[in-house]
């Protein structure tokens, strides 16, 4: 058991899976000698050699398309997109093959591959290094989209993703990479993909978020609990697609009120889907409209303006209060 940050937790998951399964390999730009621009693959080259820790040319489509071939040949490639902002270069491969190979062949060919990508804002980075676009992957049946929120669940979910028989888009909130540490057990552990986690039980309102937004979400919940004595149930989605309808519906059916916090632009974002699921499954229990606290429908601004564009705990507090009072 060691106290790790999320980068180290990702690194641990990769190292242990590579250790125990010789078909697992890591590939991407700068993942080998450099250890990844965030150091998530540091040390792997020394341990596993250049055949299993592959510095690729600068070609996202090539990386993912290559991984499709490798997966069909029995390997389990874990690809890294250096930033999610560059991952759209491989959308053709993703849509045409990553999501479809199993269905196309009725299961004769499947793709046990993972596409890791740091995403989201908050680190004062250059343009294209700050977006949250999980919906572009979540809307495509055939792949799964997983977003951890802390070191321990990052490790457990990444292990599960690598072992999953199907492609998993594993989006790492870079704002959380070094934000805090958690105890992460030495022995391998997994979390089920497709299941959300109730991180706190409550009765007055359901608060849903994922990834880096879990932090302002938790902070806001604590504030409102203190200030108003409200009992808030908090859900960390962990998997975005396919979504865990049961957990969401059960919670909102109990509380009757819901606030969803998301970093992505509002329109056509994950919180819209969550609202629709609640509409489907918990409509008659709703005592107030579901409140979506989200990024805005603007082009993600450069970091000079980033802070005012990211949802913050204050907004979440106001959203909760408004929803409690509605």
């Amino acid at each position: 058991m060691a106290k790790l940050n999320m980068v180290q937790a990702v690194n641990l998951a990769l190292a242990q899976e590579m250790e125990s399964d010789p078909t697992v390999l890591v590939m991407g730009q700068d993942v080998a000698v450099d250890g990844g621009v965030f150091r998530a693959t540091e040390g792997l080259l020394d341990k596993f050699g250049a055949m299993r820790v592959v510095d690729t040319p600068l070609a996202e489509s090539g990386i993912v398309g290559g991984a499709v071939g490798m997966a069909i040949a029995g390997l389990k490639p874990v690809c890294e997109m250096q930033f999610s902002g560059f991952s759209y270069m491989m959308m053709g491969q993703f849509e045409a093959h990553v999501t479809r190979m199993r269905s196309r062949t009725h299961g004769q060919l499947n793709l046990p591959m993972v596409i890791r990508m740091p995403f989201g804002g908050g680190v004062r980075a250059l343009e294209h290094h700050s977006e949250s676009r999980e919906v572009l992957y979540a809307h495509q049946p055939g792949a799964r989209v997983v977003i951890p929120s802390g070191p321990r669940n990052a490790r457990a979910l990444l292990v599960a993703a690598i072992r999953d028989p199907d492609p998993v888009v594993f989006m790492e909130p870079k704002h959380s990479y070094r934000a805090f540490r958690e105890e992460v057990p030495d022995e391998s552990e997994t979390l089920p993909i497709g299941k959300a986690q109730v991180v706190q039980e409550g009765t007055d309102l359901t608060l849903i978020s994922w990834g880096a937004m879990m932090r302002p979400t938790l902070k806001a919940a604590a504030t409102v609990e203190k200030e108003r004595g409200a009992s808030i149930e908090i859900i960390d989605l962990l998997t975005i697609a396919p979504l865990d309808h049961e957990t969401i519906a059960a919670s909102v059916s109990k509380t009757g009120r819901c606030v969803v916090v998301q970093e992505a632009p509002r329109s056509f974002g994950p919180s819209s889907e969550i609202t629709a699921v609640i509409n489907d499954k918990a409509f008659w229990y709703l005592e107030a409209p579901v409140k979506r606290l989200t990024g805005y429908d603007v082009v993600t601004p450069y970091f000079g303006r980033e802070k005012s564009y990211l949802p913050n705990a204050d907004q979440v507090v106001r959203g909760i209060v408004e929803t409690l009072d509605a």
Partner: protein
Amino acid sequence: MPRKQLAKFTVPFLQILAPDGQADVKLDPGLPDDTLLALYRWMRLARELDERMLKLQRQGRLGTFPPNTGQEAVSVPAAMVMEPGDWFVGAFREAGGRLVRGEPLRAALDYYNGWEEGNVLPDRDLHIMPNSVVIGCQIEHAAGLAYASRYNKTGEVAVAFIGDGGTSEGGFHEGLNMAGVWKAPMVTIIQNNQWAISIPRSQQTASETLAQKGIAYGMPVMQVDGNDPLAVWVAVTEAITRARKGDGPTLIEAVTYRLMMHTTADDPTKYRTEEEEKQAWEHEPLVRTRKYLEGKGIWDQKREDALGAEVKAEVDAAVKDFETPHSWDQDEPFRHVYGTPHPVIEAQHREFLANLERGTDRG
């Protein structure tokens, strides 16, 4: 060190069998008779399948498909020189090669009639990739398959096909570049059939040959007469041998012609002349191969007729099988979204079945 020449490249060309059926004796690989007969038979079978599929399509008994008539001398010999474990990575105009590799005749019929069942092979180990309708992607897949061969030290070679049009896609570039860096055991064959739907080769790229595109990736290149099965045989054999030895990938341009329409939804009279097509027919591969066999004294009209009847019967049987009513489930896709169940899919599966049961009476 002023203006100097840094590097020199040449693009070799290979033709062995001329359109009149005469082989260049110095280059003739001297294939055994039974191999030559098998080669011709596969090409005839592929042609027969095309012609029957065209008829079926015109009669509304089959969906749209892309005929490979005229290009049989590319994918058939290439598939024949491959080892069983090698990967056949097609675009979508390699019907002949697929048959050689062991894909049942019926698979193409099912596939082009709108059923994923056409992609389900009798054996996963046939190592045939499904068609890559999205052009260019398959080159990246082949690079990955070839990398895996090195990883697992299986000696397998990935043999990928792409059209002249496909060479313009980014995937062609990224895949070949990676293969070059990886010294991956991979052979890429451009079927330059002169057209990408209505776009002629000359408008696809300004390069003098398509073969020379391999220079960009530091790999050996060759242009071959793609209507000459012996030239393809020799070129692909050389390339596969090099790949298997660990000497990396090769790019081969096979110059051929798409004698029929792009797909059955296409009307080539909109963009090319009958004259051009007529001329192209004079170079087509089957006649020249037949003449070559006749010249060797191993073929004649009687055997030709017998083969004609044979391949017809084979296709007849496949069509009959294909048209025998089947009971493939409509809900099959729900079983293959993921390899493990998820409640969202399961719930929608139930919803689908309920909707299916209720029918669509009111439209």
